């Protein structure tokens, strides 16, 4: 436990990957060797990434905890800090505070089928838990990933999608919104909830992990309910306005819950208990 809880780790941007228009991935390495050795996190957790002089921004840790020595984050250029981050180059130094939040209960999922559903820029929080599970592949039965974006160029992690497609132990279905296909697109065409319904994965012994823009989530939950998924077996990760990350600044307080401490991972059952203020 660091004495000054507001003090970030110093990180060097090792690699910048352009994912999609306005979306980049940073691979970050701890500058201090002791920090690098000691740092640990679990899938689902997030951090506060900062550009000194500009501010801090909240994103999940998008790399898997099974891969040591570095972390990755993916963000879209939207506001003040993400714009400043976007201007950072390989070799730049940024700050990182974390890991914060609760975790995906992967231990509880062992022996079950896993269904990952993600949309657009929401694949990053899922990517962490997907790779975590794939690195422990023998613990799970069937693994299905359904991922969609507005158009082909908006799909993130295009390399990983290829990897997942080639794997025999993963069923990957990618889709783009109608009108978003390119001439050589061979995936599905349709909104993510529609494709989920079409794929009709079995709810028996299956955990569903859903992450996406509010409109996608809103229409996906009823589809899963229709397929027989219970609210306790559907997990999601909530986006919210956060600042401190450790339950003190008050920004992410929703009902009796602090999204930064009791979340961002919630089951649908837990979400339904929260007041509609997120």
């Amino acid at each position, binding site marked *: 436990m660091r004495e000054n809880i507001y003090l970030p780790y110093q990180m060097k941007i090792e690699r910048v990957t352009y994912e999609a228009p306005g979306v980049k991935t940073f691979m970050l390495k701890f500058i201090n060797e002791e920090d690098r050795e000691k740092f640990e996190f679990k899938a689902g957790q997030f951090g506060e990434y900062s550009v000194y002089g500009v*501010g801090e921004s909240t994103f999940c840790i998008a790399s898997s905890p099974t891969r040591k020595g570095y972390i990755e984050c993916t963000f879209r250029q939207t*506001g*003040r800090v993400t*714009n400043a981050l976007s201007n950072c180059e390989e070799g730049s130094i940024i700050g990182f505070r974390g890991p914060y939040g609760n975790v995906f209960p992967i231990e509880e999922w062992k022996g079950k089928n896993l269904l990952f559903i993600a949309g657009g820029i929401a694949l990053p929080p899922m990517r962490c838990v997907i790779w975590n599970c794939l690195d422990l592949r023998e613990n799970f039965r069937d693994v299905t990933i359904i991922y969609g974006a507005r158009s082909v160029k908006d799909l993130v992690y295009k390399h990983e999608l290829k990897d997942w497609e080639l794997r025999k132990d993963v069923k990957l279905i990618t889709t783009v919104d109608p009108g978003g296909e390119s001439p050589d697109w061979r995936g599905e065409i349709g909104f993510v909830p529609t494709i989920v319904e079409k794929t009709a994965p079995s709810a028996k012994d299956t955990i569903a992990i859903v992450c996406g823009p509010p409109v996608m989530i809103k229409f996906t939950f009823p589809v899963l309910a229709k397929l027989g998924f219970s609210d306790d077996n559907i997990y999601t990760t909530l986006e919210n306005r956060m600042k401190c990350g450790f339950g003190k600044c008050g920004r992410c307080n929703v009902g009796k819950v602090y999204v930064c401490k009791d979340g961002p991972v919630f089951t649908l059952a837990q979400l339904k208990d929260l007041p509609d203020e997120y």
Partner: protein
Amino acid sequence: MDELKNKVRELLGSGTVKVFIGYTTGTAGTKRALFAEKPEDAEGLVFDSSCIQNLAVYVTKQEVKEKGMMGISATLPVMRSLVQLARENQVSDSGIKVIGITPESRLIDFGNLSEVEKYIHQFQLEIDQKNRDMLEKLDKMTVSERWQFWLKELEPCFKCYACRAACPMCYCHRCTVEYNQPQWIPVPSHASGNLQWHIMRAVHLVGRCIDCDACANACPLAIPFNLLNKRMIEDARKHFGGYQPVLSGDHLMSTFKPDDKENFIR
């Protein structure tokens, strides 16, 4: 103020007005806003010289507007604010019915905002003697002394923005301080940042502030930053041909003239 109560009962009962904004007695004899929606709510209406909150601040509040046609009991400052708001397209006759209260506490049932405008022209906007003396005292200081004065006065300000919230003219959905690309005004409270905020606000109000003191009255720390606004009013009068807020017709800060010599720029 039985006449007012009867008037309001009538307006609400007939459905002419859906919500009437007036004053009522609050804690420890203080006065606060009352939103009367049913005729019987009018019973709570009061009026006396301690009713100084500028009620015009509520006519741009979404939750009040969406109730429908508004009515308001308007003292002179409130009337001035309403006329200025109308000029800035924030309120119109189709949205508000004004019941004026003269300095002698008589009621005037205004037919429309033009009548309110005509009425307020009877009164010059004068800054009171005590404040004029203070402005003179500040004028006599050197630039450096004045700067130190303001840094000292504004250091305790904790940026609660009560001044902004209470001002009828500060109706921007997103205030300049709420932009962070770029961050025009620093967020944290410290003397220089506080000074930036108050100066910026005074400048944004030039020609629009009608000297109602709602801002300084709202300040929990009784900081006299309204002196900045009063100075702006005096400057406008001195340098813009006797300009008086709301009485002088145009929008002072948007009156560009191509033949302006701009010889204040050195």
